């Protein structure tokens, strides 16, 4: 678990105006904390109001935890300039191995406001250059 879920408390690291925060009050996620998990995509919803990504993360003890992450709207991601690459409805598929970074839920729920996704080839789909 410790190897794969590395909590990096980096107060200054925050995507300016993280677009996916548009829907919610400040309460749910902690913009002052960052978590990175590596896992396998189980669900990918390219839907309004927010794109949702679910991945299964296997800890050192072999137990699986499903992490959920949210991004901004699909319309925004499909427009050039809003992410490292232009997103589309098939950019992630069930079974894909990805690294997902974001601001975690304040209450410890395995959920995050995603700030970065890197695919199995090391290509940042969002959050790399921004």
């Amino acid at each position, binding site marked *: 678990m410790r190897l794969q879920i590395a909590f990096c408390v980096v107060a200054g690291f925050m995507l*300016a105006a993280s677009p996916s925060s548009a829907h*919610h009050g400040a309460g749910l996620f902690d913009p002052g904390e960052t978590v990175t998990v590596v896992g396998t995509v189980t669900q990918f919803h390219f839907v*309004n109001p927010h794109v*949702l990504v679910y991945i299964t993360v296997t800890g050192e003890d072999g137990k699986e935890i499903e992490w959920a992450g949210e991004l901004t*709207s699909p319309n925004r991601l499909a427009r050039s300039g809003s992410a490292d690459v232009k997103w589309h409805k098939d950019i992630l598929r069930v079974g894909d191995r990805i690294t997902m970074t974001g601001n975690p839920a304040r209450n*410890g729920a*395995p*959920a995050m406001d995603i700030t970065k996704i890197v695919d199995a080839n090391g290509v940042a789909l969002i959050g790399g250059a921004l």
Partner: protein
Amino acid sequence: MMQYRPTAAAMLIATLLSLSSQTPAAAQSAATLEHGADFSGVWTNVNAPGTAEWAIYTFSEELPAMTEWGRARFEASKPQRGPRGVPVAETDDPVYKCFPPGTPRVYLHPFPMEIIQLPGRVMMVFEYDHLIRQIYTDGREHRTDLAPSWMGDATGHWDGDTLVVETVSFNDKTWIDRTAVPHSEQLRLIERIRINEDGNLQIDLRIEDPIALEEPWIARRTYRKTDWTIEELMCMDNTTYEPFENLVLEHDQESD
């Protein structure tokens, strides 16, 4: 004064639309059918430096001065955004029941809008829930035959290259912003819209409501032009977000 003349295609569309509109375009003089500037295109909001934190949910850093009537409603509301923000599951924000945000709040939702200019009319087509505003510039008066509405009744005129818009006849079911600043049916919105020195669309707002506000709320929104197209964005799709938020909220309960 630069006159923007509509294209033949726009004229054709206008002719078709005028078949069902209240005032036939043909009855209007050429002067009132022309526009003082060309705002056509898809625009997206840009925040002035230092405003990013609040500009997504309200019109100014400080709350406007509210009357006792306004303050009472404000304090009784549970907005989802701003310093008093609560989770989506707990808010009484009408937009989360998919009622329209109304005017001018629609400007606060972070999605683009397209401006289409037809003879005697400027249309704002918002990506958010495909809401539209029709600003008639053909000299007509405000409608008095219809009930108050979500987006209001908008008429405008050109002051040189600035479009001056007056919108009235609002219902009182919306909030002025996303932090729950309320308004009454006496809401009156005056906008001065122009292309500024940076090539951006600048909308200066004067939000008046003697029932809710002690004094007019003055604000500015700025938009940059894009090469985007307006995509589909239906509010009812917001239900797809509930399982995600519940996953977080229910974790609270499990921990209790």
